């Protein structure tokens, strides 16, 4: 599938900032599953954008604004093609403990994805889930699917309850949250069970919204949040496999990956420091359009804090 994505982030300061510096992680990554045919980032006020690749291979752009500006608007535009890959997860017929044995030669490379990190903690609630779903004798692929489904069924998707700093334990108590919380929780459970897992930030094309005129073939789609997060686990056959507990599915053609990291802290889409102002309001608009579609008026933009 080919997607056209427009992602606009706007910071509006309470008083104009005198200077600011930001790091952007907005360009979708290249992988077996997806190919980026075009990408550019536009910044207002207009300044030079520099780029580099970070430790986890993500494309990073940096922006320095050394003069007074009332707001900062970053727009990332890209065309991405995704394709379905064969199901590598269900090809693994092993127990969890056998899988763990097979990780040993790669322990050094996988180490970062087996340890706690900023948002990944082995709390009692996490350990309990690991003991329930990923026991050493459990079958590797089915139990991961079961855990994915369990999180989807037992926790509620609800924006606005949690924020970018919510911990897994807080999520387990509140029992409602957004994709980032689902991803952090499932990563924690996998790592606690000795299965390497990493955080994926990206976009998702969400289900069609029924056309008010009666048709149901709407194809320009906006979900609750088109910005999305999920996770990948390292399968013993050498592939990273994407799981999406927010939607109870495996990563598919409608997922577009931006960045990978240990958790959200490694891949925030926009991270900045500004001076001269005490507060800011943030608004994000993401529009994911499938290329085959005919032009339709833009649906109402989702304007929520970044989850």
């Amino acid at each position, binding site marked *: 599938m080919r997607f056209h994505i427009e992602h606009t982030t706007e910071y509006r300061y309470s008083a104009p900032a*005198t200077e600011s510096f930001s790091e952007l992680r907005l360009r979708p990554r290249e992988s077996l599953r997806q190919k980026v045919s075009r990408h550019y980032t536009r910044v207002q006020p207009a300044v*030079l954008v520099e780029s*580099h690749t*970070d430790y986890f291979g993500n494309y990073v752009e940096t922006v*320095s604004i050394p003069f007074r500006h009332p707001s900062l608007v970053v727009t990332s535009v890209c065309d991405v093609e995704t394709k379905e890959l064969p199901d590598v997860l269900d090809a693994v017929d092993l127990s969890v403990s056998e899988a763990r044995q097979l990780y040993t030669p790669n322990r050094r490379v996988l*180490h970062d994805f087996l*340890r706690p990190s900023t948002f990944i903690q082995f709390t009692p609630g996490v350990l309990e889930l690991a003991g329930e779903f990923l026991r050493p004798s459990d079958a590797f692929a089915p139990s991961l699917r079961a855990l994915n489904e369990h999180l989807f069924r037992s926790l509620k998707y609800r924006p606005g309850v949690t924020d970018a700093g919510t911990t897994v334990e807080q999520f387990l108590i509140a029992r409602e949250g957004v994709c980032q919380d689902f991803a952090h929780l499932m990563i924690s459970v996998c790592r606690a069970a000795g299965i390497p897992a990493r955080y994926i930030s990206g976009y998702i094309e969400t289900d069609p919204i029924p056309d008010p005129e009666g048709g149901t073939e709407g194809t320009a789609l906006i979900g609750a949040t088109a910005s999305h997060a999920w996770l990948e686990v390292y399968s013993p056959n050498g592939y990273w496999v994407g799981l999406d507990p927010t939607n109870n599915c495996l990563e598919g053609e409608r997922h577009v990956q931006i960045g990978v990291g240990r958790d959200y802290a490694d891949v925030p889409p926009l*991270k900045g*420091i500004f*001076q001269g102002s005490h507060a800011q309001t943030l608004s994000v608009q993401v529009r994911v359009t499938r290329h085959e579609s005919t032009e339709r008026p833009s649906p109402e933009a989702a304007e929520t804090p970044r989850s």
Partner: protein
Amino acid sequence: MTNPITELQTQRQGTGRGVASIDERFDELAVASPAAAAVYRDLTAELERSGGANLHKVSQQSQRLMRDLGVTFNLYREDAAAENILPFDPYPRILDRATWDFLARGLAQRVRVWNEFFRDLYDSQEVLKSGIVPFEIVYDDPRYQRNAVGLKVPEDVFVHVAAFDLARDRDGRWVVIEDYVGNTTGVTYALSARNVLSQAAPDLLEHADVEPVHSYATELLEHLRGFAHGSPEPRVVLLSPGVYNSAYYEHSSLARQMGIPLVRGSDLIVLNSRCFLKTIGGLEPIDVIYRRLDESFIDPVAFRSDSQLGVPGLLTCVRKGTVTVANAAGTGIGDNRALSTYLPKLSRFYTRESLLIPTVERRLCFDPDQRELVSSDLENHIVQHVSERSADSVWDPATLNPEKLAKLRERLEKDPARYVAEPRLPLTTLPTVGTDSLVPRHAGLRCFVFGGRKPRVFPLALTRYAPQPGSRTISSGLGGGIKDTWILRGPDSAAAPEARIIVASPQRRLRLGSRIADSLFWMGRYKARVENTTRILRVVQQVQLENPAQQRAQSWAALWEALARTTGHDTHFFKSSPLLRQQSVSQYLLLDRKNPASVINGVARLRENARVTRESVPPEVWAVINRLWQTLDGAAAGKPLNDDDALPRIQDLEQRILDDIDALSGCAAKNMLRDDAWHFWTLGRHVERAVNATLVTRQVLLKRADSAAPVASGDSNLDALLRMLACQYAYRSLYQSRPTPEHVVALVLQDAALPRSVLHCVESIRDSLERVSGPEVRRRDASSPLRTAAHLAGEVEFADLPALFESRSQGGNGKPLFLDAWLEDLAARLTRLAVEISDHHLYHQAFNILR
């Protein structure tokens, strides 16, 4: 290769007869070489000759000098009392040439190994792939900087400056007990020790031929400049976390001795992958940053975002190779004691050499066998956190109560990878001056190395000792003291390398840093603001007291409005406020900490700004500001000013504030150099004063919101206005009659001879801006505040006041509307001028890059 340790031991065996008494008392003497032992004997004889009196005198004198020099060690607290004077002992440690040469070879080797390790770690990580070092040690350490992987540094040098703590056991063997390859401290204490000793006991130094230390700072600067990226005139700055850091004394004194700016993160800015220092003249490109800030703070975007200490985007400059950070980002993991324990293996891995000086025997608790060794004999170990270096991350099990001991064991069981344990430190004892005799005290040695392709160990060392008998606590943060260290010169004494002359012509001098200028500017503004508020309040109160007959609040409305306006309130503030009982107003305006415009808050900000510019403010000026602060702080602690008999206290307080302010003006005028710093202090005062004079004049004279008529001649409010601006005598000497509105406005606005007139202030602003702008920025530059100031000065000087007075509104309330509008506009433009000055010289909104 000959083993230098056995070399030393052989030398020792050859002598040692006839010195039994002091050799037995102090074990360092027992292991010292003959040359060093001879000096020790001499010194001991000299100091003990005259008995206790001489010892006592020297000791007292050095302590006084330490205080005078301000050799302090800050604890992280705000109050000045937290500056602790380090104990100093005049009895030096002596190292003969052979010993020093051995240490120098060993430590240079150690720096080379560390540097190879960092080069590999932040590149292909062969050392981890081959399993020489367990990767968990690195990957689980928060100081492993993933963002620094792949960064290229000039000449592959990561460790530019290093230090090592050494101990010597009773057999004379040296071991390294601590490696400092990230951020090294302590060198200024070594320099101060020599400074103090040479003043307190100059004759002692005559007993030996000792390596001089005075060129350390210049050589360090030359060394750092050598790592600039191809700039013909490399600019070096010292980046410090600021006054609350425990090593701030060291940062400021080192920067002064090196002659480079001491900067904080907000003084630097990143623009198009280049790092600049904000100065009042513009943005100066910086080539080398000698950071004395923990690396996890240097770039809040790349590293820790919970801190504002660093420079956002600094890492992008390092990535592009436009700036060198010394030591390189990523070296902080060298604090990890487990890594230091692997150093012998690293040395063989990278250089196939064995280490000349080993690391102290240290057990790594993540290894089950070593952990077992530790827990089975816990009382004979010192347990330390694997990388934390604070005082509360060291445990001596022998001194812990059973409960704490159990807790420690629990920690070791639960998270063993976080701990290492060492058998008790093998420190020798040195002679130390006691109350009436020399006493043995345990001491350690810190040495300083310049890293690079050929590391050089500077002939300078710091000896730290434990003042308590039997104690091995030598850390300065825990009460340890310092001694001078004498490195004896020998025939083969290696000469310092030739100075690297990089610039043929003298450099353009760096201009005053913008942050310092900003603080001086605000010091000036707060000083004038505090004075204005106090003076106006006092005049309002006096006028009312002098005219008890006129009790109608209406008569004084204009004065209250003026007071409200100049203290940042709405014109009607006092009218509608329940504060209007005079005593409450005084409490509110003078002492209320919740009122942002109160005098006490103004003085607090004045003092805070003075504190952060201590380098540019003469101590006499600081003393007056401090006195002013105490006046207000004392008054605030006393009875509030809102009871019925408070009036005398109010008047007394106002008088004291104004006296202190006058003392401050006089003291600053007498003691401050007429340099850039002076001009910003002046700009601040005159901007504030000009705005204030304009607003007060307009409010009293013209803007009587609820009154139909303007102020008439002879109105007592006119008299009050003159008193508010402290120019009633100037008026009388000029006009010799009761005040008329026309004359008052002419005086207050246009009399250049009157220091409080608007014209005088604006002309002074123009002159100061002319001085700080320098020849290259002249009035042609449309955005320059100088142009605005010159324009304003001309306009005020030549304003046709009589005409403005004439233009009264037709049939209205008779107010001179044009004058009213003109004054309001003037105040607004003066306020904008202050913003222009800040933008142009301090915040660089115009970002003119200097070339």
